[in-house]
């Protein structure tokens, strides 16, 4: 069934001589590696929470049942920069994909107004899968970009929505790549992979499209005002520029100056505690008294009496200093010099010989991330600390005073601040039972 040929449904409505299957193919070839990087690091980011432990699952309650999870994988605690690199790549690749995605959509938008809208059942299903593809890409990128700028304007919780939106997108992308690979190969065979980029304005001709298939190539092209290399180069430069801005808050140092518009790139003044904060002390609702002199760290092991340690008790234990990055799921990270007591030493002090897991409980009265459970590899890492100081100064309240967890490659939100209790399980006891 044909629609009346009005407006964008008219075949001569689309005039740009640059549109066509070759341009779409080239942009897709640049876009795909970025999207794959973003998707893979996204899944890894989810695994990094060790959702099968304790209350780590952000949604769906404790234990199994979180979508596409694979269980039995323990997130490693080495190399220390693993999580920072993963999140950095995730946010950089996602942001860098935006200009290429927009130009790609510009290239293929005539196909949205194909007439007739559906030529066959297969064609109708194709178009439905494209709605999942385009909707999935825009939804996932938009929620991610809003989240890193702390603008929670959507009516749902970010993590599961971003996760399942991405799942829909990845499924549609896999199908799209499989279906469009022949188009890409044909375009590159007929026109060369980069040959059209060498044309200057006089030699910029419209793409002919294919004679046996609907394409985005124009039927009645206007004369060109832009070369293909300018369009592709411009999109590439924009992608690189945005990527560098996002990189500014991952790599730090002089690169952070590039993050002119990145949310966490610029510093918070000077001093040992002047590095970015994910959640300030003021935002979590802990009483000042609770972190004062009456504060005690509780060490809890099942079936044994609790041990209470004051901050002075902790400072009297052997202190370890480690230069470790702390990285936020939102893609920014900062490396600082942390000092405190080894988690392994605290486990031994609590009477645990072979620590299984350790749950760190914050004084924070509410919030899903007020407690985090670490796997035994993380607890036993020699640089896994209950930090009391940063850069040789006491932690500031914003950074978790009196004590916080810091573990190599552990997601920032699991580096529990304002720790009130550590709960250990004992693997040797389980083995004996």
């Amino acid at each position, binding site marked *: 069934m044909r629609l009346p040929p009005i407006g964008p449904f008219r075949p001569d409505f689309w005039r740009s001589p640059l549109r066509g299957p070759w341009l779409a193919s080239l942009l897709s070839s640049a876009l795909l590696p970025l999207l794959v990087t973003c998707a893979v690091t996204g899944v890894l980011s989810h695994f990094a929470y060790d959702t099968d432990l304790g209350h780590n699952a952000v949604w769906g309650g404790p234990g199994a049942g979180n979508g596409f999870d694979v269980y039995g994988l323990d997130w490693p605690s080495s190399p220390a920069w693993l999580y920072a690199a993963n999140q950095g790549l995730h946010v950089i690749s996602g942001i860098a994909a935006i*200009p290429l995605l927009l130009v790609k959509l510009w290239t293929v938008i005539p196909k949205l107004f194909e007439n007739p809208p559906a030529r066959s059942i297969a064609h109708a299903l194709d178009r439905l*899968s494209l709605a*999942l593809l385009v909707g999935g890409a825009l939804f996932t990128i938009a929620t991610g970009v809003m989240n890193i*700028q702390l603008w929670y304007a959507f009516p749902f919780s970010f993590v599961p929505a971003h996760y399942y939106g991405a799942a829909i997108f990845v499924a549609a992308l896999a199908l799209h790549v499989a279906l469009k690979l022949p188009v890409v190969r044909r375009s590159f065979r007929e026109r060369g992979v980069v040959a059209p980029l060498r044309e200057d304005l006089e030699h910029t001709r419209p793409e002919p499209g294919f004679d046996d298939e609907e394409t985005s190539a124009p039927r009645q092209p206007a004369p060109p005002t832009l070369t293909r290399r300018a369009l592709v180069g411009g999109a590439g430069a924009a992608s690189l520029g*945005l990527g560098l801005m996002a990189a500014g808050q991952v790599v730090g140092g002089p690169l952070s100056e590039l993050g002119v518009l990145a949310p966490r790139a610029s510093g918070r003044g000077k001093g040992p505690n002047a590095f970015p904060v994910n959640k300030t002390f003021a935002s979590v609702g802990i009483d000042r008294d609770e972190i004062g002199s009456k504060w005690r760290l509780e060490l809890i092991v099942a079936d044994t009496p609790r041990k209470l340690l004051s901050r002075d008790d902790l400072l009297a234990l052997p202190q370890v200093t480690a230069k470790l990055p702390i990285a936020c799921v939102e893609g920014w990270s900062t490396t600082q010099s942390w000092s405190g007591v080894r988690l392994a030493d605290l486990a031994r002090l609590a009477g645990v010989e072979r620590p299984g897991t350790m749950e760190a409980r914050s004084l924070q009265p509410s919030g899903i991330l007020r407690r985090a459970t670490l796997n035994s590899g993380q607890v036993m890492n020699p640089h896994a600390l209950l930090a009391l100081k940063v850069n040789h100064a006491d932690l500031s309240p914003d950074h978790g005073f009196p004590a916080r967890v810091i573990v190599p490659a552990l997601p920032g939100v699991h580096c529990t601040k304002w720790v009130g209790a550590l709960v250990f399980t004992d693997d040797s006891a389980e083995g004996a039972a």
Partner: protein
Amino acid sequence: MIAFQRAYGRGPLHLAGTLATFVVAAYALSQVFDLLSRPYGFVLWFAGAIVAHDLILYPSYSLAGQAVARAAVPPAARSRLRIAALNHLRVPLLLSGLLLLVWFPLVAGKSPTTFEHLSGRSNDIYFQRWLIATGVLFAASALVFGARARRLAERHNED
């Protein structure tokens, strides 16, 4: 097989692949309905993202771009210089627009209380930064255009 092709429009492999995609998508959506307190918000935002791009963002920048193009390069007065001028307008316009699109929450200073509450920093610096970035883009583009225009004029004089 030929009957299938005629009825469906493509081969059976196409149908299998498409259905596999829909199964995964349906499972993801079922999880959304199980887990999210407002699943229709998800559906609305998902569909809304398509509408926002295809029927709002694209037509707006496309119409604006065509207006700029008509003004800079009228069909009767097409010249290298005018086309260069158009592109030196297009580039800073598009880049400034892109920066605004990507960093909109920061530039517009959205939810300043949440931002400051959580991060301990203010987000009121970004509007100015975006304005400066826009100014720099236009100035740089104008400088390059000036140099190109002089070269084009010299070449014109030599001819």
